[in-house]
């Protein structure tokens, strides 16, 4: 339970500066908070509210709309198993049931050791690779029950370094160098873009 760390606060300021209106940074900042704590805490939401200058209630309002934001602790590894149509046709539901057996929890629950949460999710855009799943949003395609078991065993043994703990979304961030920055364009900035003006003037001459 924490406000954003000083390092994350730097990142937060950089993200906010990209947008013409601060509130647009709300979802990226919620991801940042989730990356820091593994879930989205009330304290972090209050901090985000300060940063984007809205009320905490507005932050909660946005946060609770989106599936990916967890409002209570989840496993270090969130295992999302797709059961939507393309996966259902090729054994997605059976894979989910197998996962529930293997980890001895129902979908939506977290194992007692805090390592795994299983989710029964909607289409994750890997339909030609069914049945598929994600661990912390990293894809695994055409998964057999045996492969699922090995994956879980690997994760327990800590031999899957490529999968960061839950919350870390992208390991590469956008960074706009100051010298190359065109700048956020505020909705109140009524000027016509310069390249349009130039082209019109050249056309007229």
């Amino acid at each position, binding site marked *: 339970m924490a406000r954003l760390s000083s390092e994350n606060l730097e990142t937060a300021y950089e993200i906010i500066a*990209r947008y013409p209106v601060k*509130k647009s940074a709300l979802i990226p900042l919620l991801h940042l908070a989730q990356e820091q704590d593994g879930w989205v805490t009330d304290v972090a939401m209050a901090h985000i509210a300060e940063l984007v200058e809205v009320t905490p209630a507005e932050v909660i309002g946005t946060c609770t709309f*989106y599936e990916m934001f967890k409002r209570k602790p989840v496993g270090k590894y969130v295992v999302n198993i797709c059961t939507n149509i393309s996966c259902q046709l090729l054994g997605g539901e059976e894979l989910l049931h197998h996962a529930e057996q293997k980890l001895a929890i129902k979908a939506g629950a977290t194992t007692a050791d805090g390592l795994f949460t299983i989710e029964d999710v909607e289409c994750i855009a890997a339909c*030609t690779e069914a049945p598929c799943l994600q661990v912390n*949003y*990293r894809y695994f395609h055409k998964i057999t029950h045996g492969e699922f078991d090995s994956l879980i065993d690997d994760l327990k043994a800590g031999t899957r370094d490529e999968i960061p703990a839950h919350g870390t979304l*992208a390991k590469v961030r956008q960074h706009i160098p100051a010298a190359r920055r065109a700048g*956020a364009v*505020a909705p109140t900035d009524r000027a016509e873009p310069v390249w*349009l003006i130039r082209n019109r003037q050249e056309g007229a001459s």
Partner: protein
Amino acid sequence: MTMNDVPKIITSRFDQGDAHTLDGYRRTHGYEGLAAALEKTPQQVADEVKAASLLGRGGAGFPAGIKWTLAPANVWPRYLVVNGDESEPGTYKDRMLLERDPHQLIEGVLIACYAVGCGQAFLYIRGEMAHAQERMAAALNEAYAAGFVGKNILGTDFSVDVVLHWGAGAYIVGEETALIESLEGNRGMPRLKPPFFPAAKGLYMQPTIVNNVETLSNLPWIIRNGVDEWNKLGAETSKGTRVFAVSGHVNNPGVFEVEFGVTTFRDIIFDPKFAGGIRGGKALKAFIPGGASAPWFYEEHLDLPLEKVAIDRAGSMLGSGAIVVMDEDTDMVKAALRLVRFFARESCGKCTPCREGTTWMEKIMQRILDGHGRPEDVALLMDTADNISVDFMWPPRMTTICPLGQSATTPIASAVMRFKDEFERYVGGPIELNVTVKGAAFIGPPTRKKEGSGV
């Protein structure tokens, strides 16, 4: 032109291992379209895209060039928003484009911003696609450093920032006004149209062009090769190529770029070059032609070309290019329930018919599947669906702000109308329906087989 001669337009770099890097991209004509665009006036570029009749690849199929002209004159600033929230069940193409050829999209974004006069662009990528976000972030960082994005692009007075933005898990955000709400930091609920047509009143109530990832990824090729080359490909109303994901019970599920409007469903499902037919030599039972929202198609639709007008007329849509194939052993009640459950989970809750209707339809279907259904439950189900999509017309009559609610009724109408016997087995008695069903694809079995194959 045979299928083998069709040039790969947007998937041309899919097998090039380093296409996601700036070097790899530039080695294969990367950013040449942008350079060519900057030699022209913005108006010339916009005219060229309009002449290309590039239909939007996100679902609705609205021509991108026309969409651009809908922004009111002399209202500034304008924004470009890229819809990369690919979530329609069965759809798998934008994620590939983002992961394998991110610079192609950036180049398309820049060409669009230059032509339309957008002061800033936002790349809204679905939250669950971590790798796509990493690839896009790395590509943007490289492109900024090399002078392709940002201030004074390629040494000209054209300047625009492209901001990478993430979603956080909500199918409805693929609807363009919901996407704008989400980008403003709000719950992703659609806005009422009119007045909130994004081209007039979009992001921060300013003119906003919302284009799909695949749509914009076509622009570098069109500008580099010219609209005449583009218009040689495809059918009269559906130009160029299109990417389709074929999934389900096929031998070779995959993502295929084919000539738009020429290739048929039979080609793409059965040809060994594409999906290679039904697994285990089984018979086809039904297929979804364009994502979970699309009414199902059957054997008699196989010879329809993948072309917007013909598919619309036959009572369905190409939507997001997602073809899901179901073999003869598929339990259609189970399949329909899974799709209805999806829409019930993803309804944003703003409009009553959708919020209440999808939830009740899921419950009724679950009861039927669990073996506790009564024969009259199927009529109840169809009556509930009829309250969301009146008379099951195609295109549907709107009772809600966005089409999600109507989409939830298409798997029900498809399954009930065509596989009534399966429902009767579940409920243990004959079913009597008391609703009017007008959508062409729902009605059957058809006597119009010849007409269907001749379109």
